[in-house]
């Protein structure tokens, strides 16, 4: 209680002292494991602008579940932070840009010469009607399958290349006494698995068409995704909803499961927390059927309209988009730089391989992590998943997904 009062008082004092400028408030959900990476950026900022006081307004909670709610009340209340973290793509455009709450950053991109420093696929993703609205700081890959090479050798299987192959391998492993060859975690990790299955079954073209409305969710091709998804789920552990994504990764490391589909923050977890060596302690491959495609998600920073310290915020964005800033942030965060000219020697073996793919692969966006669909669709997609899990009826789930897509005007 006391602490709360204290923060309240500090916030009140803070708003009183605004007249003196020299402040910058950064709003994010990076705490705990990800805190040091943000701190590295802030330290760099302080080195460049020693007179500016940086307020690190972090609201904890994985994937920003709590931070986003706080941000919305602040924005609606007319108290926007100077710059906030947001997943690049529809999570920004579909929520804030269409509501006319963000400033156009195209001049900043041109001024800094960033137009050809970021891949075109990424620039398209953060643009709305030809204008750019945020500065991406990092790139994570969603469609990665993790395993332990030594264990796979022991079981005598290869990482599967397609979902059909995956199901065969799954049967082989089951016959060898492995109860659940695929480790799965709580709710959102199930949706995470779905997007990799969808990409693998549909291919990059049709997958992208889902989000522009060119391919309907109740099209037979999209219904087939749910059928495959159902059979993949049969390979997974029954207690999934009780596990965090880390615990699901642990299952693979302990040898209780063979594979796990998770974003590449799992590599950070296994190298930093578990102390494993990429390539030896753990191995990786693109999720089945998705080789040559990089399903990306990215954290970015934007500039809300009507902020108190606009110049400081612009300086912050300059730093976030710079090579120096990205190379300071990403090795600590366990992600790769969004820029294509970063220095590979600062990154570990996994990240170097991700970098190569980032520069050469076809880029598509992630659903669960806010790149391709607005929040209104994304959060109701949980209901679709629920309909499928409780009824195992692919057509019903597909119809519900289309109904929600219509309701939120997906791709229009």
């Amino acid at each position: 209680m006391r602490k709360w009062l204290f923060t309240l008082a500090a916030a009140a004092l803070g708003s009183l002292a605004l007249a003196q400028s020299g402040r910058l408030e950064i709003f994010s959900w990076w705490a705990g494991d990800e805190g040091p990476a943000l701190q590295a950026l802030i330290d760099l900022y302080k080195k460049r602008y020693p007179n500016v006081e940086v307020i690190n307004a972090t609201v904890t909670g994985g994937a920003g579940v709590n931070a986003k709610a706080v941000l919305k009340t602040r924005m609606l209340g007319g108290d926007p932070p100077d710059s906030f973290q947001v997943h690049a793509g529809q999570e920004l455009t579909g929520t804030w840009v269409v509501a006319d709450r963000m400033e156009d950053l195209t001049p900043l991109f041109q001024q800094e010469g960033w137009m050809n420093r970021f891949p075109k696929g990424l620039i398209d993703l953060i643009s709305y009607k030809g204008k750019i609205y945020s500065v991406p700081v990092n790139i994570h890959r969603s469609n990665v399958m993790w395993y332990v090479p030594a264990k796979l050798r022991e079981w005598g299987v290869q990482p599967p290349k397609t979902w059909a192959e995956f199901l065969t391998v799954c049967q082989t492993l089951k016959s060898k006494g492995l109860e659940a060859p695929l480790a799965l975690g709580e709710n959102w990790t199930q949706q995470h698995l779905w997007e990799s299955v969808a990409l693998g079954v549909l291919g990059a073209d049709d997958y992208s068409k889902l989000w522009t409305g060119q391919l309907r969710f109740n099209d037979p091709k999209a219904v087939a995704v749910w059928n495959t998804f159902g059979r993949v789920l049969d390979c997974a552990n029954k207690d999934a909803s009780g596990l965090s994504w880390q615990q699901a990764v642990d299952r693979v490391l302990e040898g209780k499961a063979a594979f796990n589909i998770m974003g590449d923050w799992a590599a950070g977890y296994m190298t930093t927390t578990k102390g494993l060596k990429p390539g030896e302690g753990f191995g990786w491959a693109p999720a089945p059927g998705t080789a040559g495609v990089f399903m990306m998600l990215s954290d970015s920073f934007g500039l809300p309209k009507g902020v108190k310290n606009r110049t400081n915020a612009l300086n912050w964005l300059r730093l976030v988009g710079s090579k120096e800033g990205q190379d300071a942030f990403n090795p600590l965060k366990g992600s790769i730089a969004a820029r294509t000219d970063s220095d590979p020697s600062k990154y570990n073996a996994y990240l170097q391989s991700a970098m190569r793919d980032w520069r050469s692969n076809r880029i598509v966006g992630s659903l669960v992590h806010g790149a391709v669909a607005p929040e209104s669709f994304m959060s109701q997609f949980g209901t679709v998943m629920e309909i499928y899990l409780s009824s195992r009826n692919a057509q019903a789930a597909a119809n519900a997904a289309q109904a929600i897509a219509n309701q939120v005007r997906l791709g229009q």
Partner: protein
Amino acid sequence: MRWFKNKDTLYGFLVILPSLVLLGIFVYGFIFQTFYTSLTDWGRDPAQALSANPQIRFTGFENYRELFGGFVDARFRQDLFNTFYFTLFFILGCLGLGLTLAIVLDRGPKGEGFFRTVFLFPMSLSFIVTGTIWRWMLQPQGGVNQLPTLVGLPRGEFGWLTSREQIWQVSWNDLPFFTALVVGVVLAFVAAAAFRGGERRRGWIATGSAGLLLLWALTLGRTLQPLPFDEMHGFNLAFIGIILAAVWQMSGYTMALYLAGLRGIPEELREAARVDGASEWQLYLRVIFPLLAPITLSAMIILGHISLKIFDLIFAMAGPDNAPTDVPALLMYITTFRANQIAKGAAIGTILLLLVAAVIVPYLYSQLKSEVRR
């Protein structure tokens, strides 16, 4: 102008004025605003959902129609079932356990004060703390599921918070029929009680309404179908874990209530009953339990409104995304702050308010009436 002459009245009015104004704005004003928001389309158009000056259109009861009869809001309907069963078993559990503990303690065992404190203690924890502890204990791989291994039995396999099993399934389309049936039967009981008590007029009104409802249920009730297809809802077994934790936390409180009630029953009454030849069992059944009825009612009201509004316990135990253990309060939070469907969230909030009001208002009404009578 008479009240003006009376200075006490004026001072009294001035003293309560600030709280009246604050309550008027921050409670009733916002209730009205929420209700109004629920009648609009705020959030339907993403461009307007979070804009600085959103254009909001009035759409009447569209949001409510969707919640009860729309294709994609199946989760809300399941949540209503969840709340119903949770409330039912939570209240039954707390009352049963609380009464048992109170009776045992009332008989004055050794170390009564110690046990009283022990049983009351869980209540001093916040739901978040309770939820976190129980979350650990109910992990599928550990905690409670490991208990049988202590006596050499195989490990338990039940997915306490994650099970997808559902029992007592009912189609949403049958709900109007069943509701009318249950309310009709209750009204019939009310009528019977009124006749026995000699209140003829009340009895006839109750009989009439019961008859009408039952008639409606048996004739037209079957034809009213909110959904074009059957949608099954039932009791999610995953809720057992939540009920366990909630009962653990609140039964000490009902115990304290009952204990106070038991202590308030004069010894003479018990002795008189014993002199009249009542057995111990009859003594409880005929003398003590009827005297505890008002306490049961208060406890039910207090527990009932806690369980209808439950949010933090489930948030801590299973998270907001675990659909088998979802309740309307969690869904309201997700709908408003994640999906940006502000109007629909407001509609869920309004429905919650009505549910709680349905529990609280009759209670307040009867309390006020009995106070006036006094």
